[in-house]
């Protein structure tokens, strides 16, 4: 009789443990196994309680980490968008075509030129020439520090395209470093008119458009003619 009772009691305990396990498996970590009396199952139950606690703690930490990572990702995404936006703004700002005289346009190039920027510069310059009807264009590259084959090619193409439109394009302000690169790369610029600096470029452009710049001061006998 006592044996039967004992077995019944054990079965009940096992059933309780089983129930707790199922609850945990469904995601509820709040269950704990209560033991009113100490017997053979107490240690097992304590072990299970500990396991549930560990599991819930682990899960909580994982969720926290995931949240953190998600936040970081969204910040990075936002930053990426800002960078792209700024890049676009810079593109627009960085190729201004300035009309300096009736027949003369200047395109000052400053900073790094990649092939995309070179392409935009070329399109801008050609469109401005057609819109303004100016025949002389000066491509001033004083502010360019480095150049590669592709960009040099773009410059040559720009000059050729301007000629096809019916204008004339000269390049001014080639720095020593760029001159070195161009020759080392084996790029032939002999078909292109190059001038030392923007001043010389403008002097040439004025000459081509039959213009003269002279000093107007009366006490200056030797006129600064170009």
């Amino acid at each position, binding site marked *: 009789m006592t044996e039967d009772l004992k077995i019944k009691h054990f079965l009940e305990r096992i059933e309780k443990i089983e129930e707790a396990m199922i609850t945990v498996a469904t995601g509820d970590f709040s269950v704990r196994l209560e033991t009113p009396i100490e017997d053979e199952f107490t240690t097992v139950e304590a072990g299970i309680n500990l396991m549930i606690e560990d599991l819930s703690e682990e899960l909580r930490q994982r969720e926290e980490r995931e949240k953190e990572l998600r936040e970081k990702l969204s910040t990075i995404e936002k930053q990426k968008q800002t960078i792209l936006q700024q890049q676009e703004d810079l593109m627009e700002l960085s190729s201004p075509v300035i009309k300096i005289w009736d027949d003369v346009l200047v395109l000052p190039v400053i900073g790094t030129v990649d092939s995309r920027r070179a392409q935009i510069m*070329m*399109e801008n310059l*050609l*469109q401005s*020439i*057609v819109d303004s*009807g100016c*025949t002389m264009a000066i491509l001033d590259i004083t502010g360019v520090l480095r150049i590669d084959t592709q960009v040099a090619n773009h410059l040559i*193409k720009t000059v*050729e*395209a*301007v*000629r*096809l*439109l*019916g*204008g004339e394009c000269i390049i001014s302000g080639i720095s020593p470093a760029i001159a070195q690169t161009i020759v080392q790369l084996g790029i032939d610029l002999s*078909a292109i008119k190059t001038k030392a600096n923007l001043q010389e470029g403008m002097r040439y452009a004025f000459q081509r458009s039959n213009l003269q710049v002279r000093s107007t001061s009366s006490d200056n006998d030797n006129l600064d003619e170009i």
Partner: protein
Amino acid sequence: MKYDPDEIKVSRRIPIIKYGEFLIVSIQVDMHDRLAMELQTQILEEITKTNARGVLIDISVLDTVDSYIGRMLYGMATMASIMDAAVVIVGMQPAVAITLVELGLDMPGVLTALNIEQASRMLRKKMKNKK
């Protein structure tokens, strides 16, 4: 190749106008290969007939030019120059210029101008220098 009567009709629509010592050709239809060839022959014949010293080819309304048309224009300029007539290509669109340069057809030695006014001034100056 069969001759399409419609094509010939279209080709007659490109007028070659004599203006003083110059011929003015304004291309206002989309060029296709046969039309381009015919135009080339017509212009060269007209040069001998009228004794023209210069030809102004206005392509300001052409949005697209393929390599064939580009070569034709270049060829025509060279041919006319050995017939002692200068060819000026007038009013090329930026997109067309970019295409031609990308195709490697940069037409060395061919005169170009932004508009007819500039082109005729250019030709007059050239003629004055010759005399």
